């Protein structure tokens, strides 16, 4: 089985699944309702033994707002597959930490940074920030400088001075001078 076959198999088996091929990489986008079933199928039938990474994207302004991105691989590293699903802000996503143990911490990080909840997760605590911190810092509406918060005897945060920032890199702006990070 190669990556293309794996992607086609999934799209045939699950309705509403789209396959995107870009430079030899295959991405299947599945409906949130099918997400758990697709992942089970990948693990049990298609032998994707390894979850390389799980991440999330905040497409602020779009509906549904968030995208979850899971990178699957076989242990002999011959087949890679990217599984995406789009979910709304209020939705919960079924965990896959029982299929791949490595998803446990990845999903905790997604919860911590983006505020997406995973149903059925055994231990959904924050992993980078502390329990009691009220924000999800990688959401688009969260300012880079941070927001003040206070938890006595645990931690506090303040606002970082940006002095003309935030500094934005403009890739492909022509010259190096124009491309380098500046207040724009």
């Amino acid at each position: 089985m190669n990556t293309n076959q794996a992607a086609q198999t999934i799209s045939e088996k699950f309705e509403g699944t789209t396959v995107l091929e870009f430079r030899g990489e295959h991405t299947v986008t599945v409906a949130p309702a099918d997400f758990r079933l697709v992942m089970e199928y990948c693990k049990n039938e298609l032998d994707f033994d390894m979850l390389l990474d799980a991440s999330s994207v905040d497409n602020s302004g779009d509906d549904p707002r968030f995208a979850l991105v899971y990178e699957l691989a076989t242990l002999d590293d011959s087949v890679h597959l990217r599984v995406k699903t789009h979910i709304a802000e209020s939705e919960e996503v079924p965990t896959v930490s029982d299929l791949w143990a490595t998803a446990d911490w990845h999903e905790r990080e997604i919860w911590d940074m983006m505020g997406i909840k995973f149903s059925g997760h055994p231990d959904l605590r924050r992993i980078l920030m502390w329990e009691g911190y009220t924000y999800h810092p990688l959401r688009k509406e969260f300012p880079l400088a941070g927001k003040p918060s206070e938890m006595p005897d645990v931690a506090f945060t303040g606002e970082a001075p940006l002095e003309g920032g935030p500094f934005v890199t403009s890739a492909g702006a022509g010259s190096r001078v124009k491309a380098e990070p500046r207040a724009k």
Partner: protein
Amino acid sequence: MTTSKASLSVSGDAAEDLNAAAAVRSELAHAAYDSKIEGNVIITRVDAAINWMRKNSLWPMPMGLACCAIELMATASSRFDISRFGSEVMRFSPRQSDVMIVAGTVTYKMALAVKRVWDQMPEPKWCIAMGACASSGGMYRSYAVLQGIDQLLPVDVYISGCPPRPEALIEGLMKLQEKIDGEESTVDLKSESLVS
């Protein structure tokens, strides 16, 4: 000499008594001026003596939090050899440390732990903020990073650099030694004892 002359003109028991007394007196005179001690006595002020002892035996509490800690380790090892300045005794217990070297990025999650270790260090204590991050947050203008450790504890010496070279850390340590040299330690000791 007058005593020995006198003893010549006296005879019997009285003469013996006088001889014994003279021997004791000459011994006392000898003890008061001992040529062996001469040159080994230094007159100084208590302040100067205390400061001298403190500044030449600064035991660091290494608070290595990021890449600055690598330079801190380099400073401690053979090429740069911080022991030339009396600071080679890295103590990983705050109870035994004199100077906390905050080397690296202090995140908000770590900040109160740093403060707690600082509070556990006995007086007198000093703090060196090593590098841009510990001094001001450095390039991390971010929600997660404390913008300078001086928001939490008093800093004596700031060292610039990202990370500073070992020479810079040694320079900072020498600056701290200069600062300690100018302290009024006795007055501080008195005021401390008055408070407690």
